[in-house]
């Protein structure tokens, strides 16, 4: 199997407006989704990303705070999963809870070294 990267974007605004009760529920849905992936042996890794960051250009001549792109472009976290091909990886991503908050998942194949 190959490895694919999921980049999670957006959903921040909706997330922040939830009630504590809703947040706990949502967190449990994420936990279950990732748990299932893990039990299937598909989960390689993943981490959440902080909201703040920098964008460095021209060897540091230009450094901007960011990426303060549109709310729905900020990457909030990533996962690496195993799948046979892009289609399968994409299908698996459809269950991601981020869609509850109108977020998106970008699916990219991780290039392997072995040919």
């Amino acid at each position, binding site marked *: 199997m190959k490895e694919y990267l999921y980049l999670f974007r957006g959903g921040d605004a909706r*997330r*922040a407006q*939830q*009630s*504590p*009760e*809703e*947040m*706990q529920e*949502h*967190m*449990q849905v*994420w*936990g*279950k989704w*990732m*748990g299932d992936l*893990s*039990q299937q042996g598909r*989960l*390689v*890794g*993943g*981490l*959440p990303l902080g909201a703040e960051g920098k964008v460095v250009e021209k060897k540091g001549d230009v450094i901007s705070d960011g990426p303060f792109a549109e709310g729905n472009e900020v990457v*909030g*976290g990533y*996962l690496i999963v195993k799948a046979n091909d892009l289609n399968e990886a994409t299908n698996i991503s459809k269950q991601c809870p981020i869609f509850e908050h109108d977020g998106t998942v970008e699916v990219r194949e991780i290039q392997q070294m072995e040919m």
Partner: protein
Amino acid sequence: MESVANNKARLQTDEVISHFFRQEYGRLVSRLTGKFGTAYLELIEDAVQESLVKAMQVWPFSEIPENPSAWIYRVAVNKLLDLLRRNRNTNLTDSAPEHIDQQEMDLALDHELKDDQLRMMFACCHPVLPPETQIMLTLKLLCGFSNEEIARALLKSESAVAKALTRGKKRMKEQVEKLEVPDEKELKERLRMIQKILYLLFTEGYKTSRGDQLINKDICLDAIRLGHLLQENPLCQTPRTFALLALMYFQASRLDTRVDESGMLLTLEDQDRSRWNQAFIDTANELLNQAFSGDISEYHIQAAIAGYHAVAADFATTNWDAILNLYDLQMAINPSPVAALNRIVAYSKVHDAQSGLLELTKLEQDERLLNYHLFYAIKSELLIETGEVAFGKVMLKKAVELAENEVEKCFLEKRLSNLA
């Protein structure tokens, strides 16, 4: 990387106790407001909210921390200090502490958190605020419900709740700068206010309105949780507190049986008693036993009545004599239309329906009852029992007209159509 693939951590996300986030909100807002003062209330709420968002985002990826409360706490404190620094130019921040002793926060003992919440309760239930505002503040600040959830539970619009809370917080801040337990001379009255609000809160949750059943049940259980804060505090563990808590436990024991699968109301007569929560009933009885060490209050009487229902195998074999005596007592010390009507039901069980009707005529002078659907509902039942079905139907129609609660209205309509 390994942490995400760790199955053990995975399961833990599901194991976070029910309502943990919601109640943590209440605990943290209470603690931080206790430390910083009410002037910072909104900033504190923002900080706590943000820390819960962060937990929600981060925990699924790794593991639930060993001490989830301490984790959220730490994040909330840091966020709060951050917000304070950013607000540096306002005079609001002049008196704010520069930093907080992190250790002190981490080691917050269980009883300290309870004391914090108790003090917050006194603030939310300040007598200068209208009772409805006190309820909303309690639901928001102590129970962690959102404006939308409060609106659904109280059958109001979200904007009405938001407005009431904004006004309420402002007035609360004017009255209370630092959270504290009132001193001796005020304590008795202030405690009564809290008890009254807790019972109103419980009643709101207990109503079988077509609102959100799940939230309603949570509200009842939270009212009980807050009642325990009173019961566990040496200054507040009065007989009234015990009686109130007993009453709530008795009623809560029936929470799952008041509507059938189709959402139709089930009266005490028709509820499946095997599904009454026996543990709650036992707890209620224990509490009630501890309540009889001083003055008898209306809570004592209501709890005792609820107790007789709770131990009865069915409606027919209930100890109606004892209940009637209790209603007589209640009418003597704390008369109310509902009590008067419920007394009639007990009266007609002890004597008969005809006598009950006669007794009912004594109440017909009370204008409040003439617009109360329950009056007509009870009258119609008694009439039907004595064979006066036609007149009974007329009264039932009147009850349907006057009923405001959708579920009750539906119940009465069904009864009417069954008689046709």
